């Protein structure tokens, strides 16, 4: 099985899961108590208006028919109209997703860049003070919800020592044309380095607040994987051949433990996407999550279904990418059943 066929297999499985997600969230949205049409129109609408709305939303059809109509619309990129913004849900998603992705991707990067080395240091000094320190810090990091970290960071680094801005994506005085919706990319595309710096400056604190529990999780995981790797004969062999401890840690223990760590970090991406809801609220970040909270509070069915679908799709795509990276890193997968 080559990497390519493996990737196709994973892609197929992800698509099946995504269809499952769409069914699950669609059915939950339809079986809830209360009439969606009534919810959409509010308590003051007349019976006739509600009945007309039911017709428009196909609510009088059997649920299977409703679902197939929904899928048909979905194929054309139509998720219905949002009651919250009075615009097509798809338009809203396209507008808000990039801000969230920018935040989540930077947080994911921080998680890998900080979490993995911390875990590796901890494992190499297993039982000594650096290990104990990293263990306590990483456990603390996973013990606080993202909004507590966000509040703490804002208090310390924005209010008490004003190093970072409190809210927003970019300084109010700057105006950059929207191309991709990714502020970092758009500012660079416009050649505006001052704007780029400002966008990055606004991004760091929320991304770090979002990343903290992930950093802790990644450190803990890398530590335990690396300790398990240290007990394997391959490490003893490296020691028997007199390779230096630093080299053994880097090349012989860290690399093999990267493989299981990365897989789980991919799964942890789900937590980042979920926690973005909490962080965006604190930093008034104009992203999908803040939109999501809005539509949930308004019981905006179309928008809720659309938001959940796009978040799951993002999660599945991320895991496909991680799986692909892991299969490149892991020669066992790359060469399984090729030679012999």
């Amino acid at each position, binding site marked *: 099985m080559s990497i390519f066929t493996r990737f196709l297999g994973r892609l197929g499985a992800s698509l099946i899961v995504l269809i499952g997600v769409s069914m699950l969230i669609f059915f939950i949205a339809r079986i809830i108590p209360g009439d969606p049409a009534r919810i959409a129109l509010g308590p003051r609408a007349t019976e006739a208006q509600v009945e007309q709305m039911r017709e428009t939303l196909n609510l009088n059809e059997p649920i299977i028919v409703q679902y197939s109509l929904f899928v048909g619309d979905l194929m054309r990129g139509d998720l219905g109209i949002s009651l919250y913004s009075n615009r097509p849900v798809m338009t809203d998603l396209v507008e808000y997703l990039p801000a969230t992705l920018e935040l989540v991707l930077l947080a994911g990067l921080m998680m890998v860049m900080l979490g993995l080395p911390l875990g590796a240091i901890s494992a190499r000094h297993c039982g000594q003070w650096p290990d104990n320190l990293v263990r306590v810090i990483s456990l603390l990091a996973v013990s606080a919800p993202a909004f507590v970290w966000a509040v703490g960071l804002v208090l310390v680094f924005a209010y008490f020592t004003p190093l970072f801005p409190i809210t927003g994506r970019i300084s109010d005085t700057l105006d950059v044309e929207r191309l991709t919706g990714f502020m970092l990319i758009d500012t660079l595309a416009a050649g505006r380095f001052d704007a780029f710096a400002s966008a990055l400056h606004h991004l760091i604190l929320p991304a770090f607040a979002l990343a903290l529990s992930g950093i802790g999780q990644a450190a803990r995981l890398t530590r335990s994987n690396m300790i398990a790797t240290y007990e394997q004969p391959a490490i003893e*062999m490296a020691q*028997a051949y*007199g390779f230096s401890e630093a080299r053994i840690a880097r090349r012989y223990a860290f*690399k093999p433990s990267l493989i299981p760590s990365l897989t789980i970090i991919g799964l942890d991406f789900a937590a980042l996407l979920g926690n973005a809801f909490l962080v965006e609220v604190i930093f008034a970040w104009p992203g999908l999550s803040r939109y999501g909270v809005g539509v949930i509070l308004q019981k905006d069915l179309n928008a809720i279904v659309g938001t959940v679908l796009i978040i799951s799709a993002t999660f599945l795509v991320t895991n496909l990418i991680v799986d692909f990276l892991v299969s490149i890193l892991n*020669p*066992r997968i790359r060469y399984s059943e090729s*030679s012999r």
Partner: protein
Amino acid sequence: MSDPLTLDIKDLRLSFQNWSGTTEILHGIDLKVAPGERVALVGESGSGKSVTSRIVLGTMQDVRTARVSGQVLFEGTDLSARTSADRRALRGRDISMIFQDPTSALNPVFRIGELFQEVLKRRDLKVTKAEARERAAKILNEVSIDDTDRVLNSYSFQLSGGMNQRVMIAMALINEPRLLLADEPGTALDVTVQAQTLALMRDLVDQQGTSVLFISHNLGVVREFADRIYVIYRGRIVEHGATKALFDAPRHPYTCALLSAIPRLTGGGVPDIEERSPDFDAPFIDHAELR
């Protein structure tokens, strides 16, 4: 002494400290290996033979709960008196090791060729990739591997156990060490493959004049390979002698028990060795003085 022993172990003791106190593992071992000589240390698992090899290798001294005392002289200098960095400097250059399960000991995320280069760097930091491949191919030929390109480009899990064992022998000897520690080599392989690879190993150490400390639980395997044998039981050497002398006239009750445990082609089954017998605690028997 113009020609010191390759390895001279005097009154070696080892204990581990844990929360319930101290556990004694070795109770004063004496063992000698002359240059070019092949010596076997035979005993059951838990008898202390593997930890002995780790002390000679110098890694056991770095375990924080381990207490090592006594002398381990390698070519006349005492290893226990040296720093952990000094001991590491010897490993992979002057002292090398072969492990029980070659397939898991060869790191699965690197190609065999890359592993060879790493090992060669222990002697010569500036060795190039091409030089490393050339030298690796040469020594692989000596352990009867012909398609060296394929092997060097493979990962350990793509090769058979016997092939990995030969790779490991070649890797252990490529830097021409003066002492080779072989810890149950090939025990994970089937018997015929094990015999083949041991014959290859024997030829190569003969050619290089390497001294070998061969650790095994199986007297049968050792018979073909070793010049002299030490039998170890519960952290003490119980019998020592030249291979022929020991096989012809084993005198210690424990050695007799081990000998009777070698499976024979003529059948009759394997007699059990008792877990513990007061006979086994009989005093040390030495067949002859060294040389």
